[in-house]
């Protein structure tokens, strides 16, 4: 046990020395961070394209099933096709704005606003208009 503790303290010491050698610039991103960023961009693009297609398909599918159930073909399918399109756009919007992939756009926007307000005072906007969010996001 004592031996282990010795080694542990030696390790702590080593860690401190490494940190000192690395210097204060630990959070700074080097130029070699480019590749992961590009990868993230590709992942983002993939997510957006899939999101747009899938929500329309799911919307149309729900409409089709409701039609088959209620015998209202083709009206519900048409309505849900457009609703699916709207869901796709709102999903893309929340992915791009970094609002996670959460359901509940208003809730996510509010959470982000709270985070922003807590992080950088002054950028938080007055939470009175929920409808149009577009331009005032930093």
């Amino acid at each position, binding site marked *: 046990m004592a031996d282990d503790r010795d080694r542990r303290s030696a390790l702590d010491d080593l860690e401190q020395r490494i940190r000192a050698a690395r210097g204060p610039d630990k959070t700074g991103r080097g130029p070699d961070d480019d590749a992961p960023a590009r990868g993230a961009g590709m992942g983002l693009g993939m997510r957006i394209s899939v999101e747009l297609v899938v929500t329309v398909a799911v919307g149309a599918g729900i409409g089709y099933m409701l039609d088959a159930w209620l015998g209202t073909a083709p009206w519900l399918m048409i309505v849900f096709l457009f609703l699916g399109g709207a869901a796709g756009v709102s999903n893309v919007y929340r992915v791009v704005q970094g609002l996670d992939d959460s359901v*509940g756009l208003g809730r996510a926007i509010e959470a982000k606003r709270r985070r922003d307000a807590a992080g950088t005072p002054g950028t938080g906007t007055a939470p009175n208009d929920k409808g149009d969010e577009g331009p005032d996001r930093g």
Partner: protein
Amino acid sequence: MADPVKQFQIEPIVPLDLGIVDLSFTNSSLAMAFAVGLSAALFYAGTRRLSLVPGRMQSLAEMMYEFVANMIRDNVGKEGMRYFPFILTLFLFVFFGNLLGMVPGNFTFTSHIVVTGALALFIFVAVTIIGFIRHGIGYLRMFFPHGAPIATAPILIPIEIISYLSRPFSLSVRLFANMTVGHIMLKVLAGFVVSLGLLGGIVPLAAVVGITVLEFFIAALQAYVFVILTCIYLNDAIHMH
């Protein structure tokens, strides 16, 4: 030229037809067994001789462990660590499935939407159940944006429900499409190398080399995306913002 989609053909290795269901051990099952075996072997080898200063295998296993643990801590928080074993298993399964698919001749089981769909549906159902257990009927509140005018409910609620229901589809289609497209592209371009001969084949050969590297990258990236989206969905269910 070789058929570019022949690589996705399911072939039974040990036929076992039970009348109602076909339980044959196929090449897909074999690839899954490889993936499971490799991840188990990695952690067995990594934890066999534990030392404070990790050896090669141990640091590899620790890297995997910490990568997933940090992902959960960042995206879900402390409560998410309860689901750590599942998420680590999921990550290793998809990750090794994608990577083993890059071994020539090996089957890529993540290129089948049945596999990815089953994984995604399981996640979707599990996350929904977790949400209802933690929040009760209040979980349904997430379908209506807080603070929106009540008049917009007839439009907003279907939209939110559609975007909730589209999760398993987008999760599974993304992984499946990436793997399938990549492998078909490799096969088609490799076919060009053969048919263009010695002189003209150099251009597609260069493309194949580049795309192979890209495919390795995508294999890792898609496993990561699959798991991080699981974390995000889990976070939604646990915290509801």
